[in-house]
């Protein structure tokens, strides 16, 4: 129904002017094809991360140490499923179907946050995930509340509101472990040791090496660079580590008085590449599990369709 009277170049100029003026782009607006593709890639990657992220935590629901912790974990994992739904739906406003998105996840064309390819080995990992993984996600998502695509920005607002309980419950449970028996404290330290670097990798490669960054910043899909976000996360998290009485697993971590910020050691970018490209500890499991759950849910979708057509037939009769 929408008809545009301008030529491609004028449309693109008007589009960029709108973005520059901090106005949101809405689903029925004209947008460059590459903007649309870029958004589909980033938003679906985000949606897949929410849904795959349910696996390492779901692993501990039946083994939570108390009923309260179990209810909390269940509520958190349920939220993540909801976040995936908000994000998939927002992505679908760009003219792609849910089936196409799931297919891309299954055949490896679409990625998800590499952190979810690490295993959750102990109960302390659940605390560390809430605190560090959700904490890192929040730093990123807060800036995405100002992303240029309206449906994405609005789903981020909703998600950020729900995320803060995720981080707080994780940290709260680590306070208990860090102040518990020596074994419990060691468990907390071990979890920090294993999750720290993968959490820093969540922000992606250095700005200079980031494939999509420059264009995404120009279009205001991304609002802050990978390195800026990573630094903000480190600066906010260091006092929290100290408060727990734990040690950050980075011998080069040092407060820089002049910058008013922490200097930190280099990340293991080989590991980053390995995990991104499918060779992390759990990549195969995560996708296999998702395929299995998807296939096992097929009868529910079949039943819904059968019921719907039966209802329609009855109505027509």
């Amino acid at each position, binding site marked *: 129904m929408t008809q545009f009277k301008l030529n491609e170049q004028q449309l693109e100029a008007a589009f960029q002017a709108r973005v520059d003026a901090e*106005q949101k782009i*809405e689903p029925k607006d004209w947008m460059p094809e590459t903007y649309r593709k870029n958004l589909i890639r980033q938003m679906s990657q985000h949606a897949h991360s929410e849904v795959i992220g349910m696996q390492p935590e779901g692993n501990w629901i039946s083994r939570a140490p108390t009923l309260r912790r179990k209810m909390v974990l269940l509520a958190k994992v349920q939220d993540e499923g909801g976040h995936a739904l908000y994000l998939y739906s927002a992505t679908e406003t760009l003219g792609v179907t849910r089936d196409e998105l799931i297919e891309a996840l299954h055949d490896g064309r679409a990625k998800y946050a590499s952190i979810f390819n690490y295993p959750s080995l102990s109960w302390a990992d659940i605390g560390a995930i809430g605190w560090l993984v959700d904490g890192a996600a929040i730093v990123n998502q807060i800036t995405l509340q100002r992303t240029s695509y309206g449906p994405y920005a*609005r789903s981020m607002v909703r998600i950020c509101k729900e995320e*803060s309980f995720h981080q707080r419950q994780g940290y709260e449970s680590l*306070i208990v472990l860090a102040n518990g028996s020596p074994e419990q404290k060691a468990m907390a330290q071990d979890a920090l040791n294993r999750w720290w670097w993968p959490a820093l990798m969540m922000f992606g490669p250095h700005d200079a090496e980031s494939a999509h960054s420059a264009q995404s910043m120009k279009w205001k899909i991304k609002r802050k660079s990978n390195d800026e976000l990573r630094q903000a996360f480190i600066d906010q998290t260091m006092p929290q580590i100290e408060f727990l009485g734990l040690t950050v697993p980075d011998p080069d971590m040092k407060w820089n008085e002049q910058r008013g910020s922490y200097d930190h050691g280099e990340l293991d970018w080989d590991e980053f590449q390995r995990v991104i490209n499918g060779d992390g500890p759990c990549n195969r499991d995560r996708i296999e599990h998702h395929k299995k759950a998807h296939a096992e849910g097929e009868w529910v979708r079949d039943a819904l369709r059968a019921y719907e057509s039966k209802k329609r037939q009855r109505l027509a009769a």
Partner: protein
Amino acid sequence: MSSEQQLKLFEVFVRSKRGLDHKHVGSLHAEDAEQALEYARDCYTRRSEGVSLWVVNSSDIVSSQEEDAESFYDPMDDKPYRHATHYQLPDAVNNM
């Protein structure tokens, strides 16, 4: 005009500014969706209250009933742990 001839009812939603959700503002009668859009423009955005309008057939809206609210929402009432404020952290780290 007899009631059988009455025009269809449409619900009207206005987006007041780019980036904001469409918000329900009221309803109106119209022959079809296109006419409803024009009427909505004349009725609800005479002072440029919006940048975008949605019109939806009222009969297409499926609504929960307020009388059912208790059983509909009851399961949510005893889950205070879904709220961030449920987790009390010491002042030194309470900014998360």
